[in-house]
C-alpha cells in the first residue's frame, strides 16, 4: 500500500515504516516561536539546561505579535527574548521584518519534505512548500529544540480535490472558507489535508500559503501541498534550496475525500464569532462595517495587496471607515512600493502599520471600538480576538471582499464593484 505525504515524512524522519495511527519519535528539521509564546518556551529551555538547538536547521524567534512594542510590560518580554536569543545564538527576526509565517519561508528555513514545529497555531502555513509543518504548545517546541526530536501520532489524511478555475475576484481565501464551512471547526481534527486538482495545480504560491495557513481552523495537523514547478520557482527565485520533495503515492489510503468545483465558488465571509460560521458575501450586504483590515499571515502577501489595490485604485474608502494595512513582510512592503501598490492604497485611505500581525491578535494597531464591525483578511474571528469583546463583530474574508466592503461601508461582494 502506498503512503500519504504525512506517512512518508514521518517515516523518513523517524527511520521507520509508519502508517496513520502509529506513534513515532521523529527528528524535527526546524522550530520557531513568536513573541507571545517564546517566554514560556524560554523558561522551559532554561529548566532543561538548553545550550543550543539540536534540530537540523536550528530554530528562530520572530517578534511579530506585538510589533513594534505597545507597552512597558511587553517591552520587558521583548528584552527577555532578545537577551536569551543573544546568549544562545538563536536567530531573531525583530520588529519590522514581518509576520513569522512569511519571514520563516522567506528565510529558507522551511523546505519541501521538512518536518517543522512552531509555537504558533498557524505554523501549518509552510505546508504550502510541501512540508509537514504544525503548531504546538511551548513545551513541545522546547522539547523539539532541546532534543532535536518529538513524538508524533501519524495522522490520517483527507484528500480535497478542487477542479476547474476560479471566477473573477474569487480565490484561495474563498475556497478555504467554503471548505472550513463544510467540514466545520473540528471536521479535520488531527488530519493531514492534501489538496489536489486543476484549481490547486494552477494556484500561485500566495494562495497556497493562504489555504495551508487557515487549515488549522478545521483542526488540521498538517496541510502539505504537492511539490511542483510553482513551488520550485518560488524557492529558486529567492535563492532557496528545493529540499527533498515528497509526493503521496497513487495507491495511498485517504480516510475521506471531498470535491469542490472552483467555478461554483463565490465570495465567502466568516461571521462572528467562529471561522466555520460562513455565509455568502452577497447575503451580508446589510452589515455595516467600521474598520477594514488587510494583512496577516493569511492574506498579507503581494498578490493580496495587489488584489485590494486593483479594486481601490483611483477611489477612496467610505468616509468614516478605518482601513488598516499590514504587509506580511518588509520584503513584500518594498515590492509593493516599487509596483505602486502602496501609493494606490494610501490614496484610497489606507493606514499602513509595520509588517507584523498588526491588529489581528488584539494587542495594538487597530483595536475596535464597542459596537464596531470589522472586516478582516485574518484567520480568526473569536469573540474579543481583536482586543475588545464588547459588541464587536469580526468578519473574515478575502482581500477583494475586504476592499469592496471598505469602499461601500457595508459587506460587499467584490464582483459588484
Amino acid at each position, binding site marked *: 500500500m502506498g503512503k500519504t505525504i504525512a506517512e512518508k515524512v514521518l517515516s523518513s524522519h523517524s527511520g521507520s515504516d509508519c502508517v496513520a495511527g502509529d506513534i513515532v519519535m521523529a527528528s524535527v528539521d526546524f522550530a520557531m516561536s513568536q513573541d507571545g509564546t517564546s517566554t514560556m518556551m524560554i523558561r522551559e529551555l532554561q*529548566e532543561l539546561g538548553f545550550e543550543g538547538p539540536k534540530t537540523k536547521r536550528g530554530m528562530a524567534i520572530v517578534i511579530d505579535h506585538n510589533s513594534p512594542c505597545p507597552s512597558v510590560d511587553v517591552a520587558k518580554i521583548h528584552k527577555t527574548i532578545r537577551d536569551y536569543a543573544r546568549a544562545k545564538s538563536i536567530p531573531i527576526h525583530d520588529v519590522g521584518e514581518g509576520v513569522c509565517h512569511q519571514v520563516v519561508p522567506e528565510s529558507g528555513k522551511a523546505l519541501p519534505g521538512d518536518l517543522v514545529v512552531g509555537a504558533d497555531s498557524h505554523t501549518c502555513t509552510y505546508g504550502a512548500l510541501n512540508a509537514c509543518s504544525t503548531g504546538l*504548545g511551548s513545551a513541545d517546541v522546547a522539547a523539539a529544540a532541546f532534543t532535536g526530536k518529538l513524538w508524533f501520532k501519524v495522522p490520517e489524511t483527507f484528500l480535497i480535490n478542487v477542479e476547474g478555475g476560479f471566477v473573477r475576484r474569487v480565490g484561495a481565501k474563498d475556497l478555504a472558507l467554503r471548505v472550513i464551512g463544510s467540514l466545520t471547526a473540528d471536521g479535520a481534527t488531527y488530519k493531514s489535508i492534501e489538496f489536489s486538482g486543476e484549481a490547486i495545480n494552477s494556484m500561485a504560491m500566495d494562495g497556497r500559503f493562504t489555504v495551508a495557513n487557515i487549515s488549522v481552523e478545521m483542526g488540521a495537523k498538517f496541510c502539505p501541498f504537492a511539490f511542483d514547478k510553482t513551488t520550485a520557482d518560488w524557492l529558486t527565485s529567492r535563492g532557496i534550496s528545493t529540499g527533498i520533495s515528497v509526493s503521496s503515492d497513487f495507491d495511498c489510503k485517504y480516510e475521506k475525500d471531498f470535491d469542490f468545483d472552483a467555478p461554483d465558488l463565490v465570495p465567502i465571509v466568516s461571521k462572528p464569532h467562529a471561522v466555520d460560521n460562513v455565509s455568502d458575501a452577497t447575503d451580508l450586504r446589510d452589515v455595516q462595517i467600521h474598520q477594514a483590515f488587510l494583512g496577516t499571515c493569511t492574506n498579507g502577501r503581494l498578490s493580496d495587496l495587489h488584489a485590494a489595490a486593483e479594486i481601490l485604485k483611483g477611489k477612496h474608502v467610505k468616509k468614516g471607515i478605518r482601513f488598516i494595512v499590514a504587509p506580511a513582510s518588509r520584503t513584500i512592503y518594498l515590492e509593493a512600493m516599487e509596483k505602486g501598490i502602496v501609493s494606490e492604497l494610501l490614496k484610497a485611505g489606507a493606514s499602513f502599520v509595520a509588517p507584523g500581525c498588526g491588529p489581528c491578535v488584539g494587542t495594538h494597531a487597530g483595536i475596535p471600538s464597542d459596537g464596531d464591525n470589522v472586516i478582516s483578511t485574518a484567520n480568526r474571528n473569536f469573540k474579543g480576538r481583536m482586543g475588545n469583546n464588547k459588541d464587536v463583530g469580526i468578519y473574515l474574508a478575502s482581500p477583494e471582499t475586504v476592499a469592496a466592503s471598505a469602499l461601500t461601508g457595508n459587506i460587499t461582494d467584490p464582483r459588484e464593484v
Partner: protein
Amino acid sequence: MNELAKHVMEDIAPDFSRNVKKGDIIVAGRNFGCGSSREQAPRALKAAGVSAVIAKSYARIFYRSSFNIGLPLLECDTDWINAGDELTLDLDKGEVVDQRTGKTVKSAPIPKTMQTLLADGGLIPHLKKHGGFALE
C-alpha cells in the same frame, strides 16, 4: 499565571473564576480548547484549581499541551453529567463515576504516551528525569 487564572472562561461564564475551587473538574462538549496554540490556556485552568477536564472532544493543540503541563483530559459523552455533580475519575481505567446517579461511563483510553507524561508530572519534568525522551 495567577492573573490569567482570574480571567478563565470569562466570556462564557463570567463568575467561573470566582466560583471554581481547587479540585474542580470542567465538563464540556465538543472541541474544547478550540483556538490558540498558547500553553497559557491549560496552565491558566490548572492555576485556577481545575484538576481535570472531561469533554466530548478536544482541539488538537490544547489536548497535547494539557498533558504536557500535567492537566489530565478524558474524552467521553458528557450530556449525562450535571453542574455541581461529584465525580470520581479513574485515569488508568478511563472511567468516570457520577456520585449523584451512581452511573459509570467509560472514556476513550488515555494514550500510553500521555500516561507516561502525566505520571512524570508533564513533558519538561519527563525530559529532565530521563535526560531526553523515554517514551516507548
